[in-house]
């Protein structure tokens, strides 16, 4: 099976500080992967590069069967190509209803003129209802997103990600600020999502990563320190030294 995302030898420095240093990474079309690392290991910069927010100084990022380079594309084009990103802080459009938020995220033509002529169809409404149901917000459809609780906003954002049906999902610290029950729900959801697509979870909570029970990539000072099962990497002396030892 060929890799869905192939990141090879990327480097990025900010004012001389090497945030990413010759990092290589690849993930299959159907896989769940956890990326862990201490603060400043380059996790966020890595996500920024894949989603087009930051351009690396060096290296190559390729996506999909044809190995399309992502470096020449902007954020919107990359998102349309099928890479979704979930931010740590729930970012939903607070001024608009839950239904509007979900409708905006539905897979459809993103061209301004196509959007101008777009009107809800029976199918799109059914899809919005189904999505709201899936994330437990069907009773909140007409409420404004700003009125939702923190947890509900997280779920709304997940619903929006599902709506756009990405092939690769990047999730930034999903467990942050969640209760134990919510964490379990999130774990189940992430595992379920990974049955049909590639999911990369960036996290520094070891317990949460253990629940995910997947292959782990450890970052340190901008490059890959170790890769393998969680038990495998936790036995790695380097990993113990820089991360777990603290």
């Amino acid at each position, binding site marked *: 099976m060929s890799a869905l995302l192939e990141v090879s030898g990327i480097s990025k420095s900010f004012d001389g500080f090497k945030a990413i240093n010759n990092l290589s990474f690849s993930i299959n079309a159907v896989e769940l992967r956890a990326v862990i690392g201490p603060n400043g290991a380059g996790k966020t910069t890595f996500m920024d590069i894949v*989603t087009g*927010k930051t351009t690396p100084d060096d290296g190559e990022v390729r996506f999909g069967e044809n190995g399309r380079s992502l470096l020449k594309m*902007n*954020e*919107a*084009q990359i*998102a*349309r190509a099928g890479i*979704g*990103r979930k*931010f740590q*802080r*729930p*970012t939903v*459009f*607070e*001024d*608009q209803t839950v*239904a*509007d938020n979900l*409708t*905006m*995220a539905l897979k459809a033509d*993103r*061209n*301004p*003129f196509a*959007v*101008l002529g*777009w*009107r*809800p169809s029976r199918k799109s*409404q059914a899809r*919005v*209802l189904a999505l709201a149901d899936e994330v437990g917000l069907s009773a909140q*459809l007409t409420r404004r997103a*700003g*009125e939702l*609780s*923190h947890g509900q*906003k997280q779920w709304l954002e997940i619903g*929006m990600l599902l709506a*756009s049906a990405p092939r690769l999902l990047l999730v930034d610290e999903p467990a*942050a*600020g969640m209760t134990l029950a919510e964490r379990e729900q999130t774990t189940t959801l992430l595992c379920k999502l990974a049955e049909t697509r590639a999911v990369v979870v960036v996290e520094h909570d070891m317990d949460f990563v253990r629940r995910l029970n997947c292959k782990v990539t450890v970052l340190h000072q901008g490059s890959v320190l170790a890769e393998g099962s969680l038990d495998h990497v936790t036995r790695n002396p380097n990993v113990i030294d820089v991360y777990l030892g603290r």
Partner: protein
Amino acid sequence: MTRKPFILQSPSILVVLAVLAVFTVAVTVLSHAYGSGVIPTSTVKVFGMTLCLALAAVAMDLVWGYLGILSLGQMAFFALGGYMIGQWLMYARTESIVAVQLAQSPIPPTALELQEAVANQIFGVVGSADLPLVWSFAHSLPLQMLLVVVVPGLLALVFGWLAFRSRVNGVYLSILTQAMTLALALWLFQNDSGFRGNNGLSGLQNLPGLEGVDQATLSVWFLWASAAALGVFYLLAAWVVSGKFGSVIRAIRDDETRVRFLGYPVEGFKLVVFTLAAMITAVAGALYYPQAGIINPAELMPIASIYLAVWVAIGGRGRLYGAVIGAVVVSLLSSWFTGGRAPDLNLGVYVVNWVDWWQVALGLSFVLVTLFAPKGIAGIFDRLAGVMPPSRRGLDLGADQGALQEQEAKA
């Protein structure tokens, strides 16, 4: 989630159109030309011009209230629209006058002689006798009407493309738009810009070919045209913001980065709205200046665009009817207070003369609205309709700002 025609989604659209129709009919039956003559012609003109300003405010609301770009150069498009229609008005009228004069000479003038005489008449005031290149289409009404939307539209497209592509945002973008209108004004102030420098274009209230129609009638015609334009473009703007497009541009206003990650080409959306708003504003300007009678580069100074922003802020950003209310109320109040007819306010120790103090009062009310009623006058209607933002006072119960608040948890 049933589908309704966009007109019925919000009652405000029908209310605005109905009020506009009633107002237009009322002014017509009270005018000199078509009724009792209670309203003097000059007041009919003021009403017509106010409707044009309201239309400019609607466009400003699209750009600022919905898209989130505080454009401080919006009136540049307004004035450009005025200049474009003014070129034809001035050329055609001068041509008819000059033609009469030349007809008395022993040899009938050739077309070239006629054109030279017209150019001499128009540009003598800036020491030139040649028709500048920018007046090439001035003889044709359809072409100049096309230019009314094409020139401001192109300017907005090019300016917007450059600014949005570089991801200039917020206050920097506001400064850029202000610089654009100032640069344009300074260029127009020059005598060799081809637009008669600081003299501007004048005599625009006389419509060529309609010499037999008096100003009283013309003023009502322009009132009708202004009301029709406001109605049509209000509908267009309401349609644009009603569906998913409206959703997306409000989302861009609130969190541009997030919209990018949803796959929407943010720059494209900004360009569409900015250009559309520029074209609407230009149409408003093209209807305004024939009623005002004169246009000069001072109309492009940033202060005019800042006033426009103040009207929209006081009326209520993000509500199209708010923009209309703000523009109508504030501009009519402005002309009343600065017209010298407002009675002085005697405070005992000091007599407030409104001509001097109106600007201060306006500035103060702008600050107060921004601080205490960010939704402006339209916020009153929201309150009446029961659309209230949730009260977010109280302690945080969760991890961050979005968390449930103490009072919400109790409810």
